C-alpha cells in the first residue's frame, strides 16, 4: 500500500440540454447548480419578467443570483366595513390609509392611520420586519384597524426595506367586456367609483343605479363591486373596454433578498443626504448621512472608485 491522501472535492458543471435552453433565454447555470434548481430558474424567466422597472430589476437580479422574492408580512384590515382601506409601500415608508376614496366628496382628504412608518432608518423601530409588525399593531391597539403578522419561516431580523414598492390597490388599465348584459370582471373587490368606460360605450353605461333591480332602461347599469360584476340594460357594444382599480386587502407584502432603491427619489435622498439650507431658502441634499457612508465604504471595499468627483 502506498501513501494515502485525504482530499476534498470541487464541483464541475457538465453542459447538458438545460444549459442550451438557458443560453436561449440568457440565464447561465450557477456553479454547482443541479438540473432541478436550474430548471426552476429557467421557468421563472417567462413568469417574473426582468425589465428596467423596480420590480423588473428585482426579478432579474434575484433570479441571476439564484435567490427569490418571498412573502414577508401579511396586513389585514379589521376596521369598520364602511371605510375603504389602502396599504402603500414606497421606497422608505409604509402608508396605512384607513380610508382612501376616489370620488366621495364628503371626505376631503384620504385618512392616514397613524403616521407613515419609516422602514429605512437604521435603529428605527420598524427597521426590522419584526419591528415593523409590532409598530403596525401598536399604532392604536384599542381600534386595531390594521393587524400585521409575519409569514411562516420569515426571519424577523431581515431589514424591512427588503419589502419593495407595493400597493394594495391595483389598476387594470383595459379589460375587454363581452357583448352580454352581465360582465364578470377578472378581479373581485373593485374599488367603488374607479370603473370608467371609454366614450364609445358611454351610451350603454350612462346611469349608475343603486341596485341590480333599478336597471330598467337604456343606459342603466349597476356594478357589484364585491364580486366584480357589471350589469347593464343594454349588452356591451363591440370592442367595449373598461378601466378599474381593485383591492387586494388582506395584502401579503413581498420582500426581496436584494434591496433596490431609486437614487433619484426624494424619499431616499432625504435619508442618505443631510439637507443643507441654501441662501435662497431652499434645501439641497449635500453631505452623506452615516447610512450613506456605510454604503460608500461598502462600495469602496469591493471596487476602487472615487466618490464625489
Amino acid at each position, binding site marked *: *500500500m*502506498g*501513501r*494515502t*491522501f*485525504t*482530499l*476534498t*472535492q*470541487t*464541483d*464541475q*458543471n*457538465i453542459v*447538458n*440540454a*438545460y444549459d*442550451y*435552453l438557458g443560453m436561449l433565454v440568457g440565464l447561465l*447555470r450557477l456553479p*454547482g*447548480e*443541479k*438540473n*432541478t434548481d*436550474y*430548471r426552476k430558474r*429557467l*421557468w*421563472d424567466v*417567462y*413568469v*417574473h419578467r426582468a425589465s428596467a422597472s423596480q420590480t423588473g430589476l428585482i426579478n432579474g437580479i434575484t433570479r441571476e443570483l439564484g435567490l427569490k422574492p418571498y412573502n414577508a408580512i401579511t396586513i389585514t384590515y379589521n376596521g369598520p366595513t364602511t371605510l375603504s382601506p389602502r396599504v402603500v409601500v414606497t421606497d422608505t415608508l409604509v402608508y396605512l390609509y384607513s380610508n382612501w376614496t376616489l370620488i366621495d366628496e364628503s371626505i376631503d382628504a384620504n385618512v392616514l392611520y397613524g403616521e407613515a412608518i419609516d422602514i429605512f432608518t437604521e435603529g428605527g423601530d420598524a427597521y426590522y420586519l419584526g419591528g415593523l409588525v409590532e409598530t403596525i399593531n401598536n399604532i392604536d391597539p384599542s381600534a386595531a384597524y390594521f393587524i400585521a403578522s409575519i409569514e*411562516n*419561516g420569515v426571519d424577523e431580523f431581515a431589514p424591512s426595506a427588503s419589502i419593495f414598492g407595493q400597493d394594495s390597490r391595483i389598476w387594470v388599465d383595459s379589460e375587454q367586456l363581452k357583448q352580454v348584459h352581465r360582465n364578470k370582471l377578472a378581479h373581485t373587490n373593485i374599488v367603488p367609483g374607479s370603473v370608467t368606460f371609454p366614450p364609445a360605450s358611454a351610451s350603454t353605461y350612462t346611469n349608475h343605479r343603486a341596485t341590480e333591480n333599478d336597471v330598467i332602461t337604456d343606459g342603466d347599469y349597476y356594478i357589484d363591486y364585491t364580486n366584480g360584476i357589471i350589469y347593464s340594460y343594454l349588452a356591451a357594444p363591440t370592442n367595449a373596454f373598461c378601466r378599474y382599480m381593485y383591492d387586494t386587502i388582506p395584502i401579503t407584502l413581498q420582500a426581496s433578498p436584494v434591496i433596490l432603491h431609486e437614487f433619484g427619489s426624494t424619499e431616499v435622498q432625504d435619508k442618505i443626504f443631510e439637507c443643507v439650507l441654501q441662501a435662497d431658502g431652499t434645501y439641497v441634499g449635500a453631505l452623506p448621512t452615516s447610512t450613506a457612508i456605510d454604503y460608500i465604504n461598502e462600495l469602496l471595499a469591493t471596487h476602487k472608485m472615487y466618490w464625489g468627483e
Partner: protein
Amino acid sequence: MAHRSFLTQRIANRLPDWTDGRLLPHSLLQQWVNPTASEIEDLYKYLITETRCSFLTAGNLDTMDVVNVIRLSNDFVFGRYLNHLHNEAYVVPYICGYINGRDIWPTVVNNVDDFWNDALPTRITATGRQRYAGSVVDETLLNALEAVTPNSITHPTRLAVIVSGCADFTDVTRRIPISYLVLSGTTERDLEETEVIRIPYNGTFLTNKIWKVLDKVEYYGLQPEDVGTVQVNNFAFNIEREVDKYQLFITPDYEKLLYHKLGTYTFEEGDFSTHQHVTMVGSSVGELSAGHDSLEVVREIELLYNGSNIQLVDIAVQPFTGRIFGLSSQYLYIFDPYTSMPTFKNMQDKDPGSSLVVESDKYDFVRGETASVTVTWRRQLKRILKNRWSVCKPDGTIIYLNILGEEVSATAAWQANSLYTELAFGPFETDDGKIDKQVINYLLTERGTYQFIVETVFVDSSTEKDILPLHVHSKEAVARLILPIQLQDGEGLAFDADQKLWILRAVGGSNPYDVPSEYGIEYDIYGVAMEASLATDTAMVDFRNKIVYLHEVYDSVDITETDDWLVER
C-alpha cells in the same frame, strides 16, 4: 433475463395473416426478431428522450449536470499491472469516501454510461423534507363538487385524481366524446392554467401539469351525479402506474395500453408480491365509453431477491429509465422493467410441419397456476399409430404424462390408436364420433420454461414431434437498498415532478417522526410523505491527467496509492 420489445409484435404483424409468427406472441420467429426489435426500440427511445430534452417541462432531470472532481497531486503514483492483452495498465487507486460517519467505497467504472446514465443507486437517505400526503379535494359527490374549496397543495407535483362510482362516461356535448374533468389553478411555473383530464372509466388518473394551487375541479359528462365521486390527492401513492403515459411507444389503436401494478399471489409458502402488466383498453379509446370499469391482468411476474419471494407495499416507475422501484418495510428493491423470456433450448427437435400441434391459449404463468395444453390433429393425411405426452421441466428433467396429466413411465405414456386401420381419429375421437382435442392439465410449480412435447408415431413408422414452451415468469431485483430508520415501515412510494422519490409514512408507524406544524394540517390523521435521496456511488479515474471524478459529494475522500505489480518483490 431478456427484454421483450413492444416492436417485436409490430414487426411480426407485417407477415401474412396466417403465419405463426403473426399469431403466436412466443413463436420462434418472434423470438428471432426480438433482438432486432430491441435494438430499434433503444434507438427509438433515445430519439424520444433527446427530443423531450429540448422542452423544459419534459426533459430528464437525471442527466449529468455536476460531477465532483478531485485533482491528485503531481507526485501521485498509480500502480501498474499486465492486463489480459499483456499490456501494461494502471491499477485504480483505493478510493474511500467518508460521509455521515460512514465509509463508502465507490465503484470505479470506465465509461460515462456506467458512471451516470445506467448506474444503479447504491444508498438511500432521508433528506428530512416531509409533506402532508392527504387529499387536496376530499372524496366529494359530483353534484357537490362546485361548492368545494380545495385544500392547499403541500408539494408542487402531479396530482392523483380518483374517480369512482360513475356509470356513464359519455359527454353529452360530444366536444370530447368521453367525459372529462377540468382542473384550474396555478401551476408550478406560477401561471394560471387549466388542465383537461379524460375520464374513460372509474380509476386513478395522474395530471400532466405540476400543480401548486388548485382553485376548482369541474366535471363534464360524468353520471350519475349523486353517486359518482371525485377525490384529488397530493401524491400518487398506491395507484396503477402507466407504462407509457404519453403514448410515445405504444399506440392506443393497435396495442393494449398497459399499466404496471403491484399484485399479490399465494402459493405454497404463502403470499408474495408480483409485478403485473395490466390492460384497460380493448382496441381503441372510443370503446372505453362502452363502460369498462375494471383492469385486466395480462401478465404477472413473480418478484424475487436472491431467489426468495418478497413482499412489497407499493411500486413506482422511475421516469425515463422505466425501472420499477418496490418498497417493503425495510428495503427498497429495484427491478428492470422487462419481462422474463422463455428459454428455447431443445426447440431444434420440433418438426416444423408437424401434423399434431400443441397449443395453449395462455403463454405467461406464475408459479402455482395450472396450464391447460391441447393437441390438435391438423393434417389428417397419415394414420396415427400412437402418441405420447411429456413435459420438460425448467431444470431439464423430462416427465411422461398420461391423458389425465399424471406422471407415468415412458412406455406407459404411449396412447395407441386402436382404430388406425379405419383412418379414424383414434385418440381424438369422442364417444359420439366427433373430433376432439386432447387436453392435458398440468400444475406449474417451478420458475422457468416448461416445454410440452407430443411425440407421434404413424402407421408407416415415421415419427413427429411438436414442442410448446410455456413460461413461468419471475424476475430478480437488480439492487436492494436498506432504508434508513426514518423511512422504514412506509405505506406508499412515488416519484414527484422533480424525479425525487417520496415514501408515505402513514398513521401509527412504529418509528416516531417529527411532524412540522406548517399548513396547519393534522399529519397524524392523514400521514406524511418523506423525501428520500438516492445516491449512486461511482467513480472514474483519469490516469493521464490524474483526476478522479465522483458521482456523489462526500465530506472527505481518502485516495490511496496501489502497489505496482510490475515491480519484482
